[in-house]
């Protein structure tokens, strides 16, 4: 208990979320034991498969965290992801993956310019950009009949295994290392926190806040692009709407990992744990064949419940 109390407010959510992950595994296992007499959830193959699926969400969430730390949000992720995947498969060949990432970077740049220079609230600007990207992809598919087959390299990165471990997990780890390194060990990362806390003070400290905003959105776009490329590899194809299931879970994962939705605080490790939590929760609900109604209710209750636990010890300061 003393240990728990001594944790700082950034670490506590991570521990709680980890506890919750374990709880979900236990509940799922009790369910499978009672219905089929086996405990597949504890098999490494299951865990690895969840991590593989989780790596797509994880990469999206990593980028999302960068903008949430600024107190912004990136609602353009679904169609940025889709556009990156579709453009990657359209171009094909060795340039496929760079194209996908470039699409992400370009959308991120555009978002960043809108938020930093036009100062349109990100909530609404990225919403518009998402719609524009959707429109572009509808026009693209409708007008040019693009090739949608993933390249072998995309297949390899997303679907294949090295020594039994899905390659996608390594990609997630690599992205995670980069993001964590940026956040903790670079001036840019510290500037993200500073800008997220108080933009005026960061600006008057000589931090180039516009570049920080643009940079963060570009990272978010790039992550969406990487996720899109991987996802296309995983499904062997790019298809309309492939990014839609990733937006809200990514935001939820970041927040459940302890990042403040208004920006300025949060640790990357938390986001990783948040992703695992969401992925496992979805999977266990699916295994339990929970009807959609119950699934939504549980989903919402878990988020509220966990945030209540995080927040309980917070003091009110006027």
């Amino acid at each position, binding site marked *: 208990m003393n240990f728990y109390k001594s944790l700082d407010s950034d670490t506590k959510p991570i521990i709680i979320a980890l506890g919750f992950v374990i709880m979900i595994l236990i509940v799922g296992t009790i369910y499978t034991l009672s219905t089929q007499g086996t405990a597949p959830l504890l098999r490494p193959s299951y865990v690895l498969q969840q991590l593989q699926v989780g790596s797509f969400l994880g990469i999206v969430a990593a980028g999302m965290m960068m903008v949430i730390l600024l107190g912004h949000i990136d609602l353009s992720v679904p169609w940025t992801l889709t556009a990156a995947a579709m453009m990657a498969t359209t171009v094909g060949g060795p340039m496929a993956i760079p194209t996908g990432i470039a699409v992400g970077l370009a959308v991120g740049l555009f978002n960043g310019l809108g938020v930093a220079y036009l100062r349109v609230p990100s909530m609404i600007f990225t919403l518009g950009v998402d719609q524009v990207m959707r429109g572009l992809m509808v026009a693209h598919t409708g*007008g040019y009949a693009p090739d949608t087959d993933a390249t072998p390299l995309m297949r390899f990165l997303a679907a294949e295994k090295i020594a039994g471990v899905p390659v996608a997990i390594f990609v997630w780890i690599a992205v995670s290392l980069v993001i964590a390194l940026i956040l903790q060990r670079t001036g840019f990362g510290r500037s993200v926190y500073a800008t997220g806390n108080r933009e005026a003070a960061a600006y008057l400290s000589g931090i180039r806040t516009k570049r920080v905003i643009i940079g963060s959105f570009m990272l978010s776009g790039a992550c969406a692009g990487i996720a899109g490329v991987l996802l296309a590899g995983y499904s062997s194809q790019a298809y309309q709407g492939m990014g839609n299931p990733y937006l809200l879970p990514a935001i939820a994962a970041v927040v459940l990992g302890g990042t403040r939705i208004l920006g300025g605080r949060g640790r990357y490790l938390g986001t990783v744990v948040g992703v695992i939590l969401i992925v496992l929760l979805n999977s266990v609900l699916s295994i339990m064949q929970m009807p959609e109604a119950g699934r939504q209710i549980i989903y919402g209750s878990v988020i509220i419940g966990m945030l209540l636990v995080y927040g309980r010890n917070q003091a009110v300061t006027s």
Partner: protein
Amino acid sequence: PEIVDGPGVDPTCFAPWSEDTKFFQWEGREGPFKIAVVNGFVGNTWRIQMVKTAKAFAEDPAIADKISEFRVVSTGTDAPAQLGAIEDFINQGFDAIVTIAVSPEGFDRVIRLADRNDVVLVPFDNVLDTDAVMQVNEDQLTMGRMWAEFTLNELAAKGVTSGKILEVRGLPGNSVDRDRSIGINEVLEASDGDWEIVSVVGNWDDGTTQKVVADAIAVHGEFVAIVGQGGSNGVIQALMDAGHPWVPVAGESENGFRKAIAEYSDEGLKGISIGQSPGLVAIAMKAAISALEGNVMPQLISVPLPVATYEELEDGLNYWSDLPDNFFTVNEFPPCGVNISGPAIMSQSETDN
């Protein structure tokens, strides 16, 4: 419209749904007509293909000079916007409005308005739970039954009499999902085999389907067969990635699914592909024009199910091995003079637009 006795015009194309189907007749009038297509959501391949088919069909010489004005709008998944668009076209004096309803209920007002203004309203694909309008669709219940029957036949041929069958459902709450699932389960339950049916929700989306199928395989081990309502490419992908042996699979009509069946049927992927065709829009348009010309029309038009089993697949005819995976193969309905094929619509780079 007036309710009249059958038979209706051109029964090979406008087949009545069942023996009890009523017939409608509108007062015939002079063309050319103003026709609108009110789509809901746009942003998946099926809908894009549908919109393109509609445009292409409107320019088809067979009907082009019967149409004076043709307009397509997509309103998103937004019931008031769709109702509003339909009402707007009624107000503008359009003769017929073809629509994919965002919900099977809720069109009372526009049906009433269409009646008052003598406008022909033709829902298709997602049809309405009403017999007050002329509608065009494939029979979803039968589709579900056929999937299940095929699967049971293939299992019987392999001598399998028990095991787990995976059912992949579509979008929760949707009537198509409901009907297909009822059909599937009806047949499976009626069979003598000892089946455990595991059901997962794939939203008709390749990615979601792939994920939930992979999950199910990780948890349940092997299935003896899979009956999927949609996202069939995802089913195939999940099976391949998990190294799951090929088993009978029932699914939709995506090109990728058919390619896979053609390639692996020898190894056990005994597949059946039945599709809800984006080409339905053309039949709905044709039906609308026919009604406007004063012909007797069935209230509910049943479009034959485009079925292709592994035995019937032929490259370049009902699937295309050199084309992308995710367009819908069945698009044309020769008895109706609808000859716009999937690849023609989805695979030619357009220069003129």
